[in-house]
């Protein structure tokens, strides 16, 4: 892939010699990838957590007649270095407030935010500015300077850091190459598409070699196709540079596409958290279920929904929803059960997909009413690792 090559080239010639001289362990290119060989679904768990939120609260004081708003309510999260952590929630749930506490744009009213061992919320102005250089951020509306070309936009954080013109030039060209925009370096934002603008935004966010990248709805203003390409770029950046990514979104497809772990936020609390594949397979809250249900292909097929009855009396078939992840999704489960139990299994709808790199299957099947009520079918499905729900009868 071209992207691969350009990133590899950029890594071969380290643009920040000082970072290459004494790299923190996790900054070594490939370290994060080696830790997680091709399976983004299995983060390292413990280890040196790169971002830790401990009982973080943010209460906006009462204004006018309004009551005070607890935008964040005792949130605790630990994100290991190199992970892509997604936060999903509805509008007003506190997502932006949460991500802004990580680079100190928002000061928590309680708790601590620790990034790479530094309590961000306790820093003075100057120290906070230093830390912010190590935390990149990208935005829904890109926030590029319209008065600067793509090149000069990416150069901005380096100018702010006081680098020489020459050092800036080399670094910026490498970054534009990395995001696939080397040929657009002299273009102004007005002349770029949304996807290209976000690529410039990503290059700019990576300019100071941050160890953490924050993404506040970075794909929400983009069409699905462009969204996918931007997410792919973020995944590459994560795999190749070992950058920890925290991204917030209200779209489950984004989580599904690149996140390793996900937290569901509602009314300022993380109400559910886990590996993406686990949350997908076994959502515990109605909110999580609603988000997953919103994915295309997840609903009960309309033709089936029309015939579905709640009452089993007189029904020929019981309709099941089977959710299979990982190894379970790879087995020839349906045909094997049909053969071994001597029953007919009717495929009524569903979706085969992958989450991160793990296969994921969601199937609507009809089984003979008797086979479900009596028989070993239920036990066999569970033994095979399938999550089974009865959704009705036909």
């Amino acid at each position, binding site marked *: 892939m071209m992207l691969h090559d350009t990133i590899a080239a950029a890594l071969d010639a380290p643009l920040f010699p000082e970072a290459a001289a004494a790299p923190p362990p996790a900054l070594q290119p490939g370290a994060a990838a080696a830790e997680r060989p091709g399976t983004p679904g299995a983060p390292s768990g413990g280890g040196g957590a790169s971002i830790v939120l401990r009982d973080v609260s943010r209460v906006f004081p009462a204004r006018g007649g309004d009551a005070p708003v607890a935008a964040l309510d005792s949130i605790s999260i630990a994100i290991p270095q190199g992970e892509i952590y997604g936060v999903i929630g509805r509008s007003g749930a506190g997502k932006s407030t949460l991500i802004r506490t990580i680079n100190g*744009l928002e000061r928590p009213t309680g708790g601590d935010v620790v990034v790479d061992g530094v309590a961000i919320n306790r820093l003075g102005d100057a120290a906070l*500015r230093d830390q912010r250089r190590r935390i990149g951020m990208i935005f829904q509306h890109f926030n590029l300077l*319209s*008065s600067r070309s793509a090149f000069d936009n990416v150069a*901005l954080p380096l100018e702010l850091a006081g680098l020489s013109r020459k050092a800036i030039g080399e670094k910026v060209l490498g970054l534009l190459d990395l995001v696939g925009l080397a040929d657009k370096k002299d273009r102004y934002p007005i002349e770029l598409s949304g996807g290209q603008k976000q690529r410039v935004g990503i290059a700019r966010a990576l300019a100071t070699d941050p160890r953490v990248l924050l993404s506040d709805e970075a794909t929400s203003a983009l069409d699905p196709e462009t969204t996918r390409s931007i997410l792919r770029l973020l995944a590459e950046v994560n795999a190749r540079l070992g950058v920890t990514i925290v991204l917030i979104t209200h779209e489950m497809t984004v989580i599904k596409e690149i996140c390793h772990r996900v937290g569901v936020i509602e009314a300022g609390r993380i109400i559910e958290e886990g590996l993406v594949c686990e949350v997908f397979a076994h959502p515990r809250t109605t909110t999580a279920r609603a988000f997953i249900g919103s994915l295309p292909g997840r609903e009960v097929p309309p033709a089936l929904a029309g015939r579905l009855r709640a009452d089993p009396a007189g029904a020929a078939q019981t309709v099941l929803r089977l959710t299979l992840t990982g190894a379970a999704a790879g087995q020839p489960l349906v045909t094997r059960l049909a053969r071994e139990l001597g029953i007919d299994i009717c495929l009524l709808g569903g979706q085969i997909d992958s989450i991160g790199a793990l296969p994921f299957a969601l199937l609507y099947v009809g089984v003979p009413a008797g086979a479900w009520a009596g028989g070993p079918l239920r036990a066999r499905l569970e033994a095979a690792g399938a999550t089974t729900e009865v959704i009705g009868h036909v």
Partner: protein
Amino acid sequence: MSDWISPAILNLIVGSTLETLYMVAVAALIGTLAGLPLGIFLATSGKGELFEAVAVNRVLGVVVNATRSTPFIILVVAIIPLTRLIAGTSIGTTAAIVPLALAATPFIARIVEAAIREVDQGLVEASLAMGATPLQIVRKVLIPEALPGLVLGVTLAIVSLLSNSAMVGAVGGGGLGDLGIRYGYQRFMPEVMLLVVVVLIILVQAVQSLGETLARRVNRRVRRL
């Protein structure tokens, strides 16, 4: 040139034009040098802003409004002591620069304030996230992003200075306006009045199109063909 305009009158017109240009140019320069930082401060010192200083902001706002609501001709007379202090005299073209600059400063400050406030707050947020200091944000983000508006604002200020400069005849400031009043009105020479008006129109047109061209050139928010 013609029989209705004597060379003497022509000389007067050229001299007055130069006086006007001198007064307006220096006053515009001073007004911009003072109005730019003042406007930037007004735009960034509100609650929760970069240089938060709510009380100072409010006081400056009142001062600016007071200066702006004083009719120029009254301002000219009212600040005669100040003019004498600064220019050494209260009479003449150089002395007239003091009230002109004083009136231009709050005018420019308000225009600068509006232009700076127009800059997308998201850019300030992005710069803060990059670790920019407030002064860096002003220099590298706010001013460049507001530049088209700033240029148009200064243009507007120069045009209004041209019109104000016609009034400084009251303190012996000279210039085109003064000439028009003294010859065109008091000595009843309508052709002089007409010429003065024509020159002023040309000056305003020139300033306006120059300003617009410049503003367009620094504006990167529109696509170039």
